[in-house]
């Protein structure tokens, strides 16, 4: 799969997604998102150096893209209301993000021009007037210092949160995969025997769905919403 975007360039999943869509000169629609899903997943797989703090964010978007792509390829699949909502949200979010990405470029250009307004230090030469608050004592100072201490973010705790978030998301993607598999029965497992990781499985699965769509593999479905049997066309 050919793409030439480097991770360092991207601040987050929305930026990557926007770049992929812009590169294909597409508008922001569900269909466009489904078209760039593979590239997006490839990106996650190939960039082992995604920062832990950003991985969860990339996976969230990946999960939504997988929904969108499966919907585009197999319109007969039924999605829950919640899943439909997630799909709509992503299109909206990307459109919003695009506006602010563009605005941020303009702001960046403005900052570059360095047309800065400088302020002066206040009350130069004005002598301080000693005016202590009447009711403040040493114990109040202790109380406020304790509250300052409790507000200090603890870095390790943040990281733990992110790790558990990533695990939840991996489960989520795993569930998605299972869900799709159940809906479309096939000898899918043989396709993914050599899969390196979950993202790999997902990509293979989406690839298979794509083949269905392009009629490279046969689809046999007795009735709407019944199991679909897949077989290679040349078998």
């Amino acid at each position: 799969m050919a793409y030439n975007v480097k991770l360092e360039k991207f601040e987050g999943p929305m930026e990557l997604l926007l770049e992929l869509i812009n590169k294909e000169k597409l508008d922001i629609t569900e269909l466009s998102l489904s078209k760039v899903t593979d590239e997006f997943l490839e990106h996650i797989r190939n960039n082992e150096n995604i920062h832990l703090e950003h991985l969860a964010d990339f996976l969230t978007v990946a999960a939504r893209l997988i929904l969108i792509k499966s919907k585009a390829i197999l319109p007969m699949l039924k999605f829950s209301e919640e899943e439909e909502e997630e799909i709509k949200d992503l299109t909206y979010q990307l459109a919003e993000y695009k506006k602010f990405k563009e605005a941020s470029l303009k702001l960046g250009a403005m900052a570059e021009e360095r047309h800065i307004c400088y302020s002066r230090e206040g009350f130069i030469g004005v002598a301080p007037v000693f005016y202590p608050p009447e009711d403040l004592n040493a114990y109040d100072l202790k109380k406020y210092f304790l509250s300052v201490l409790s507000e200090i973010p603890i870095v390790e705790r943040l990281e733990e949160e992110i790790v558990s978030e990533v695990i939840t998301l991996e489960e989520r993607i795993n569930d998605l995969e299972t869900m799709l598999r159940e809906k479309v029965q096939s000898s899918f497992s043989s396709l993914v025997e050599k899969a390196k990781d979950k993202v790999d499985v997902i990509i293979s699965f989406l690839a298979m769905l794509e083949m269905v769509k392009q009629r490279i593999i046969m689809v046999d479905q007795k009735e709407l919403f019944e199991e679909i049997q897949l077989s290679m066309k040349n078998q």
Partner: protein
Amino acid sequence: MDQEKLKSIIESILFISGEPVEIARIVKVAGVENEEVEQALLILQEEYSHGRGLTIIRKEDSAQMTTSAENADIISELVKSGIQDGLSKAALETLSIVAYRGPISRVSMEAIRGVNCSFTLRALLLRGLLERMDDPNGGRSYLYKISFDFLKKMGLERIESLPDYETLSQDSRIESVLEG
């Protein structure tokens, strides 16, 4: 009070304070009505906006006197100011969302950027380009808004002078929900 006198008082107050001054404070010190101060400030801002070396920045309920943006090159050589430092891509994205949509919560910001923003927010707060306030809807969360230092850095007299402010400050979905 005579309007010319009030303008003179406002000039003195803004000059000596250096920092942003709340309109309420000017009202109190000058012993006049809020309206009168607003009116006088508008006139002063207008007077200072044409080829002068000083300018008056307005944000919410405060005003600050600064050097004018046109003289930035010359003044930057005289002052050592962190306000001149560059901004990262993440910082610019975050700032633009806060500038057009603030006061805004971290959660809403992340819903747009799709990325955890806590580190960027912390850095921007430290640099004084953002301010935070308690969320009036309660909880221990904050709302973020831009600061006077942000306006100074961009050379803006007011937030509404940002490009496309009218359109970008509106969230189409919120509007449609309200209408619907």
